[in-house]
C-alpha cells in the first residue's frame, strides 16, 4: 500500500513535482506514462526516498517516509527498485549481486542466500548465468538479474523506472514477460514505462503525468480509448 499526499519536489528553483496525490492498493499494478521531463521518474524515486521530498507525505505500508524517526533503510528493504540502466554491481558475479543485500542487510547465511538466489534466477530463466559477471550478459539478461536482485529482499512493492528503455528492441519482450509474471503473482507494482502495450495488458490503472502533475488517471482501456484531457490526447497521439 502506497499513499502519496500533496507530494512536492524541487531541484533548486525548479519545481518538478507540484502536487501529487496517489494511492496504490496492495496487489495493484499502476503504470505511469508521460512525456520526458514530466516528473514521472522523480515521482517514482520519491517513493523510496532516492530523492529527498520537498513537501507532502509518502506513506509505504503505513510508514511515513518524511517522518524523521523513520528508518529509511528498513522501508527500502520492502520496496524493490529496478532501474533503466540496470545498475548491476559489475565487480560481483550474478549470484553475488543477488545474495549481497540479503546477507548484509538481513544477515541471511550465505548458503541460504545462494539457494534463494538460484531459485530467483530460475524464475527469471537465468540459472545458468549464476557464476557469470554482469558484463558478459545482454541487456535483457542484465535487467532480469536486476529484477531477481530486487526480489531477493522479498519486497512488498516493486518500482520499475523505465525498465526496458535501455534495451535493444528484441530484448524488451523477455523483461516484460518477467514483469507480467510478477504482476500475476500479485506483486504491488508501480511502473514508469513507454511500453503502452504492457500498460494496456498488465496495468490495473494508468496515470498520465505532465508538467509535474497528474493530468489524468483511469483504467487502461478508458485512458487509452477515451482520454478526457487535451494533453493526454496530444501525448497518446504521438506515442500510439
Amino acid at each position, binding site marked *: 500500500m502506497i499513499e502519496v499526499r500533496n507530494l512536492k519536489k524541487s531541484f533548486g528553483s525548479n519545481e518538478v513535482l507540484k502536487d501529487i496525490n496517489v494511492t496504490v492498493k496492495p496487489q495493484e499494478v499502476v503504470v505511469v506514462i508521460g512525456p520526458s521531463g514530466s516528473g514521472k521518474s522523480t515521482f517514482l524515486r520519491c517513493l523510496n526516498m532516492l530523492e529527498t521530498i520537498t513537501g507532502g507525505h509518502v506513506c509505504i505500508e503505513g510508514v511515513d517516509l518524511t517522518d524523521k524517526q523513520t528508518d529509511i533503510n528498513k522501508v527500502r*528493504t520492502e520496496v524493490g527498485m529496478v532501474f533503466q*540502466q540496470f545498475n548491476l*554491481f559489475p565487480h560481483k558475479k550474478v549470484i553475488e549481486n543477488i545474495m549481497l543485500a540479503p546477507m548484509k*542487510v538481513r544477515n541471511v547465511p550465505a548458503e541460504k542466500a545462494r539457494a534463494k538466489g538460484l531459485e530467483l534466477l530460475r524464475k527469471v530463466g537465468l540459472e545458468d548465468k549464476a557464476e557469470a559477471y554482469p*558484463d558478459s550478459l545482454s541487456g535483457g539478461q542484465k535487467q532480469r538479474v*536486476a529484477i531477481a536482485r530486487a526480489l531477493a529482499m522479498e519486497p512488498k512493492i516493486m518500482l520499475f523506472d523505465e525498465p526496458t528503455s535501455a534495451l535493444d528492441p528484441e530484448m524488451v519482450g523477455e523483461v516484460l514477460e518477467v514483469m507480467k509474471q510478477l504482476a500475476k503473482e500479485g506483486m504491488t507494482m508501480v511502473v514508469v514505462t513507454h511500453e503502452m502495450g504492457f500498460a494496456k495488458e498488465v496495468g490495473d490503472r494508468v496515470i498520465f503525468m505532465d508538467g509535474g502533475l497528474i493530468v489524468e488517471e483511469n483504467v487502461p482501456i478508458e485512458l487509452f480509448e477515451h482520454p478526457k484531457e487535451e494533453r493526454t490526447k496530444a501525448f497518446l497521439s504521438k506515442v500510439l
Partner: protein
Amino acid sequence: MMDFRWDILAEYAPFFLKGTLLTIGLSIASIIIGTVLGLLIGLGKMMRNKLLALPFSIYITFFRGTPLLVQILLIHFAVVPLFTGGTNAIAAAIVTLSLNAAAYISEIFRAGIQSIDRGQMEAARSLGMTHAQSMWNIILPQAFKRMIPPLGNEFIVLIKESSLAALIAAPELMYWGRAMQGQYFRVWEPYITAAVIYLVLTLSLSFLLSRLERRLATE
C-alpha cells in the same frame, strides 16, 4: 668510468643491502599508512558539510603545496622532538612520507569514488544497505580497481622520494650511497648502484600492480 672499482662496491655491498631493506621497509610502512590516511582524508574532503570538509582541504593544500624536503626537515627537527623530546630519523621519515603520500592518495580516492556511476550507490541503497555498507561493498571495490594505475604512480614516487630520508641520516639506500661517495670520493660507483637498485624496486612494484590489476578483471 673506465676504472669502475668493483672492489669498493663489494666492500659496501652489505651496507647497500641493509639500506635497501630499510628503503623497502620505509616504503611499505608509508604506503600502508598513507593509503589508510588517504582514504579517510578523501572521504573527509567529500563530506557535504563544507565546514567539516575544510580541514581536509587545508591538509591536502599544505602537503601538496610544500616541498617534501621541507616537510622532512620540519618533521624531523621540529615536530617529532616536540612530541618525544628527541629525534628519530626513521620515524620522521615514515611520518613524513605517509602524511605527504596521504595528501595525494586522498585525491586519488576522491577521483576514484566520484568516477563510479551514481546508479551503483542508488542500487545499493534501494536494496536497504546503509551508506557505509554501500561504500564498502559496492563503491570502494570498484573505485579501487580504477585507482590502481594512479596509486601505482604514487607508490613509485614514494619509493624514490624515500631517498630524501638520507638527508636526516636515516640509514636507507641513498644514505649508504652518500657514505660510500664520502669515503672514496667516487661518484659513479655509489650513485649508479643506488640508481639500479631503485629501478629494480620500482619495476618490481609496477609488475606486482599490473598482476593485481589483471586479477581484478571481471571479463
